[in-house]
């Protein structure tokens, strides 16, 4: 109760003042004790003493009171001086002869600041040295706030405090984080702080201490943030504008290295929806070269579960550009379960982004549920509508990538959808509301729903399902003339699907992709944000895909069998289906891979807690928590945000999470020159100090008022003590050498 009240006192060291204020009781106690403690003296000349006392009793009392007051005031002033009084109002500060000042330091403590050049120290170490020296020289009472400009900064000094050794110590203790730079957000925080403190202090200034790299301005590649203005640049300008509107002066201290060069793996993903046991592992990775020199023959090393899986050269990367490379790992995975893949470049000045890791689950095959609206009649040789698809997905007895299971519509309510990666509805009318809800939940949790039309399907009923499940609305059913059927427009379809067909065609291999005849189709009207993967001649969509929750829904415009099209009979059918499945199936394991600063969330399962061991022997505990309420409520394991990049494993060694720095957002270390940076911030170039020797501001040098007041009060206190001594002497007028009454003999 008392401590918070003391903490609210307007002093640099409120505790010290409280202790000093308590000392005020000392002269009072002494005064009271003196009234009780006296010696006794028989006195002959009592009549004169009493007469003197009667004549001076009021004066004596007044003098006593005045002396007591002076003593108390002296102690109080000295205590206030030592504790460094801070005028909390601007008026009081002005009255005391000086305006107070708040310096908000926006300190880029993101991982790129840890870049260590071949000579010298990192920008972060340099900025820490500058800030420490600056803080040490600050006069007492000058307000300071420090805001970290990293996605994983954590609170530094986001509430302004008066300058003190503890502030200096706090700055000196800071370490670079593994978060990505978030300059605009930090500047916006500074602007809000400046606005809030505008009336409390006379001057507010905002200093950005950063390495001024392209990443700070939102560049993913290149070295000119103005070449392709991004949302980050716009946000930066808005923040600087807000700082100006708050009456604060903005200044940039550039601690970056113009010669910084950095290589980083900014992206790593599997090109197929799942890693299957015994199958090749297809990877796609993106490598950034943020140096001024081209990097020839960039070599990448791969490791699975810490064991080398080979090294591949991806080519030469031009200066200030990124290269995307598709890689096929030669060694397939042999065991199902979770594994960790590590991609590593040669080490450079910023080694943290030379490594990228990913945790994935290896499966035997992807299960696909085929729901058939027209089961067919084997006795009469009538194939089910999904028969062609089933054959395509599982062409061999074993070693298939997919494990299809075919059911009829009546069996759908009893099927456990959680076991399947995809559900294919072929030629069926919309199921009941309960099944629709189950399907929606299935897709929201990461499943893929694929719908084929047919004779049984009521297009209008599907269209009116609502809820945004379908990425496209059904239109009219079109019958094309037998002689001029509709065909697939290979060139206008998604290149990610068509690329191998085009390549095969160029090599003279007949795939039939250009000769697919579509006799009937349903018009598809794509919704906003939906992707048209396949198009027919004239641009009519044949396959539209859209996200729903964490999953995807794909809608075909023609049938799954040969009733409306001869696609299943073409050689291209199987590879086309595989390409489409790779495209629409959602890669699982996303929750195991996250960026620094994010929380790891895993399904609870049977465990109520889980202990993970991270890089450098660090440990992390995940505990069970309930998410959501009612029927949608479910248990999850979650812990604190991950602040260190690396692979986190269970105590049994099973990789559970791969945490990476956001290299795409932070690893472009191309240094932005002062003029260009000034243009980006929309400020004069003079406000940008490059290679600062120390942090100074051209702004009016305002001596910290609290510092002055502290000294002033200290001096006043000492003056009070001297006054008390003089007053006590004057009141007593005691002169030992004076003989008031001469002795005559």
């Amino acid at each position, binding site marked *: 109760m008392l401590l918070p009240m003391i903490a609210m006192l307007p002093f640099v060291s409120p505790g010290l003042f409280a202790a000093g204020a308590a000392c005020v009781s000392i002269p009072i106690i002494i005064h009271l004790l*003196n*009234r009780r*403690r*006296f*010696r*006794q*003296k*028989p*006195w*002959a*000349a*009592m*009549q*004169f*003493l*009493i*007469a*003197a*006392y009667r*004549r*001076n009793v009021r004066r*004596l009392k007044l*003098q*006593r009171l005045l002396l007591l007051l002076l003593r108390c005031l002296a102690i109080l002033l000295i205590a206030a001086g030592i504790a460094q009084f801070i005028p909390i109002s601007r008026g009081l500060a002005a009255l005391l002869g000086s305006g107070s000042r708040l310096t908000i330091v926006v300190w880029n403590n993101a991982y790129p600041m840890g870049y260590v050049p071949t000579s010298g120290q990192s920008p972060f170490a340099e900025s820490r040295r500058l800030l420490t020296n600056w803080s040490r020289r600050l006069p007492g009472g000058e307000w300071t706030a420090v805001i970290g400009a990293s996605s994983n900064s954590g609170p530094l000094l986001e509430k302004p405090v008066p300058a003190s050794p503890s502030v200096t110590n706090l700055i000196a203790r800071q370490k670079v984080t593994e978060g990505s730079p978030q300059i605009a957000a930090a500047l916006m925080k500074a602007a809000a702080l400046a606005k809030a403190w505008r009336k409390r202090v006379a001057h507010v200034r905002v200093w950005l201490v950063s390495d001024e790299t392209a990443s700070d301005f939102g560049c993913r590649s290149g070295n000119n943030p103005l070449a392709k203005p991004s949302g980050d640049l716009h946000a930066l300008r808005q923040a600087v504008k807000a700082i100006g509107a708050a009456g604060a002066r903005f200044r940039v201290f550039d601690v970056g290295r113009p010669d910084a060069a950095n290589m980083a793996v900014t992206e790593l993903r599997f090109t197929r929806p799942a890693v299957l046991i015994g199958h090749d592992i297809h990877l796609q990775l993106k490598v950034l070269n943020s140096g001024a020199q081209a990097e020839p023959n960039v070599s990448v090393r791969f490791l699975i579960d810490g064991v080398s899986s080979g090294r591949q050269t991806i080519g030469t990367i031009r200066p200030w550009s990124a290269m995307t490379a598709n890689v096929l790992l030669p060694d397939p995975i042999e065991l199902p379960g979770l594994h960790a893949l590590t991609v590593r470049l040669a080490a450079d000045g910023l080694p943290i982004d030379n490594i990228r890791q990913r945790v994935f689950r290896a499966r035997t095959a992807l299960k696909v549920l085929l729901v058939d609206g027209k089961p067919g009649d084997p006795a009469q040789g009538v194939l089910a509508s999904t028969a062609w698809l089933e054959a395509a997905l599982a062409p061999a007895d074993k070693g298939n990538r997919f494990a299809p299971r075919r059911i009829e519509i009546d069996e759908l309510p009893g099927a456990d959808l959680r076991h399947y990666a995809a559900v294919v509805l072929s030629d069926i009318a919309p199921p009941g509301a309960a099944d629709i809800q189950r399907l929606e939940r299935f897709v929201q949790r990461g499943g893929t729903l694929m719908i084929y039309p047919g004779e049984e399907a009521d297009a209008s009923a599907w269209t009116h399902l609502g809820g945004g499940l379908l990425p496209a609305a059904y239109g009219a059913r079109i019958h094309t003339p037998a002689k001029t059927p509709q065909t697939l427009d290979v060139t206008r379809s998604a290149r990610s699907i068509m690329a191998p067909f085009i390549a095969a065609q160029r090599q003279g291999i007949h795939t039939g992709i250009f000769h697919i005849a579509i006799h009937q189709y349903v018009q598809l009207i794509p919704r906003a944000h939906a992707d048209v993967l396949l198009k027919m001649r004239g641009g009519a969509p044949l396959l539209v895909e859209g996200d729903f929750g964490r999953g995807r829904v794909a809608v075909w415009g023609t049938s799954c069998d040969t009733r409306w099209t001869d696609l299943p009979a073409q050689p291209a059918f199987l590879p086309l289906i595989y390409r489409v499945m790779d495209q629409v199936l959602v890669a699982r394991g996303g929750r195991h891979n996250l960026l620094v600063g994010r929380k790891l969330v895993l399904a609870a399962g049977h465990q109520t807690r889980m202990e993970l061991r991270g890089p450098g022997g660090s440990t992390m505990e995940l505990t069970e928590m309930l998410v959501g309420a009612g029927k949608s409520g479910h248990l999850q394991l979650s812990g604190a945000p991950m602040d260190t990049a690396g692979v986190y494993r269970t105590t049994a060694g099973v990789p559970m999470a791969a945490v990476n720095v956001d290299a795409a957002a932070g690893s472009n270390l191309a240094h932005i020159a002062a003029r260009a940076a000034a243009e980006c911030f929309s400020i004069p170039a003079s406000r940008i100090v490059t290679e600062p020797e120390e942090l100074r501001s051209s702004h009016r040098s305002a001596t910290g008022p609290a510092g002055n007041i502290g000294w002033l009060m200290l001096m006043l206190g000492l003056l009070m003590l001297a006054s008390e001594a003089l007053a*006590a002497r004057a*009141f*007593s*007028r*005691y002169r*030992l050498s004076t*003989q*008031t*009454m*001469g*002795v*005559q*003999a």
Partner: protein
Amino acid sequence: MAGDSTSGEKIDYRRHLDPKVLAKIGALDIRARLIVEGFISGMHRSPYKGFSIEFAQHRPYTSGDDIKFIDWKVFGRTDRHYIKQYEEETNLQVMLVVDASASMAYSGRNNPPWRKYDHAISIAASIAYVALQQRDSAGLAVYDSRIRRIIRPSNNPRQWRIMIDELSATVGDPKTDTGAVLDQIAEELKHRSLVILVSDLFDDPERLIKGVRHLRYRRHDLICLQVLDHDELDFPFHQTTMFKGMEEANELVVEPQALREAYLKEITEHNNRIRTACHQLRVDCTQIDTSVPLDVSLPNFLASRAARMS
């Protein structure tokens, strides 16, 4: 209590007769102005008619004696200077009036247990001794609120011892009434006398002056020796002190330094008032600081008095 002493205790007479003090006093003329006038008038007119002015004896000439009293005949025979003394010189009556009230029992910080009363009786004894040695009559009155004991003036050789006994045995009353005592002394003394009042004069000044005036009216000569402790003159106290009245049952807690100036002003005003009145009544009045040795203060006083008389 002033003057208290154990009855069975052997009285140290020499305590009051410091030979050094007495030697210095013996070298000076302490005879009062009126007696001197009488002696001179013996040559012209005597104020004491009926008393013998016959030659009594010779005594050696001492520095300060008037050379006109040198017996030149004796000088012619013996080649030494002798002064002729007459009977008239023995008619000086010295009445020592000593204050024995409670306030005289104060002993200062510097010289405990030397009380003001000790100082006063030393003075009285010294003067009485010298007077008796010169064959003057000496008497004593010890008082507080009234005269406790009076010894009429006499030049009997045992007179001095009687006076010393009385001074040593006197027990004082807390109160003082010097004025009334002086009135009483004035009435008691039949002959013109030299009255020497030894007191701190902590009394009502009006009553005191009235008593002095009465004495002077009776043509008695008066010397006031105000005996004060150095503490009373300087008030050199620092700590908070409860002062307890020695004559009155009152007490006062004060910070001495804060009240010092006012106190000194009060006591100075009191003393000045008495002094002024004494001066107007041609009474010698002086302060004697108990911290100053008697062999300094008393001869100084007598020398200055002799100078004034001459």
